[in-house]
């Protein structure tokens, strides 16, 4: 870590895991001159009450950020890419009605 040597310091993002196997969740951040003190401060801020099973401490500058709306919120309907896939409820209803009408004929 470059600034660990220069001692200019920086912001460290802290992620915590409450129990073994839980997802790592962003807890907050600490200001620290280097990785060693960042670890101490993360422990004091996010672990001193025994509330964390594991912490990840990441220099903010090591994080690659993507927040371009053209890439993340494109101006077209992309609902077909959602995990739910196509919404077929209304198609099903129409098919059932059609089947009922045909049976009634």
């Amino acid at each position, binding site marked *: 870590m470059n600034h660990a040597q220069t001692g200019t310091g920086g912001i460290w993002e802290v992620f915590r895991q409450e129990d073994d196997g839980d997802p790592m969740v962003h807890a907050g951040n*600490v200001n*620290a001159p280097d990785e060693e003190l960042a670890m*101490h*401060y993360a*422990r*004091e*801020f996010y672990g001193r009450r025994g509330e964390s099973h594991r912490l990840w401490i990441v220099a903010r500058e090591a994080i690659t950020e993507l927040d371009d709306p053209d890439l993340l919120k494109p101006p077209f309907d992309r609902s077909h890419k959602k995990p739910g896939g196509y919404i077929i409820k209304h198609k099903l209803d129409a098919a059932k009605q059609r089947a009922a009408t045909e049976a009634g004929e």
Partner: protein
Amino acid sequence: MTTARVELEVPVRDALAGLLLSVADDEFVIGFWDSEWTGIAPMLEEDVATSSIAQDELGHAKALYELLAELTDDDADRIAFGRETDAYRHAALLNHARGDWAFSVARRYLYETADGVRLASLARSAHEPLALLAGKMRREETYHLLHADAWFRRLADGAPEGRDRLRDAVECLWADAQDVFAPLAGEDLLVRDGLLPEPMHELHAAWLARSRPILEPLAGDLADRRPSADGRTRRTDDFAWLHGEFTMVARSEEGATW
């Protein structure tokens, strides 16, 4: 421990009580000195860390006072807050006011290294409640030492002003630091029965072997000094002031329950 009280001969029990009191008072007094940094430490994160470590030390003191209170059929709060200054048995190292940041770092480094050696021994004490407690304390003190060491190296390897202040503090505290290992009353009985697995002079030698190589590149050759006989009974005006602070609330309404 009711059983311990029954099993131990009176002179051994008294010596054990003296040992417990010495460790408890060390943790209690350094906890109060370091808590003085709350609100004024070098940066917010360090403020929280120092305050939390100081609280840890007070927590260790509480556990030790409770152990002592069981042994002597006393009350932990009374032992902690109900004594006059001359009845405290902390090492002379802890008689000094907190000083500047380098002074507090130097003292914590000296104390944590000495305490580490002492706890490693106490974790093997034949007095099981003490061995268990010392084992638990060690898990936390390992982290305290890492924190003190991180700051010690930062100042020692950093800009000249910090380095000079740290060196001055080590030189100022060196003689009194030996007294963490000041001989205890009845120590021969404690060693005989395995309550204190090694005599203080052996623990002292072990501490010197570990701390000198770290301290001397900064402070130059440090004088050979033996722990002094009054190393846990000398008191100072600085401590009298601190005692006034930490007993103030307890004295405002004696015997109050909160």
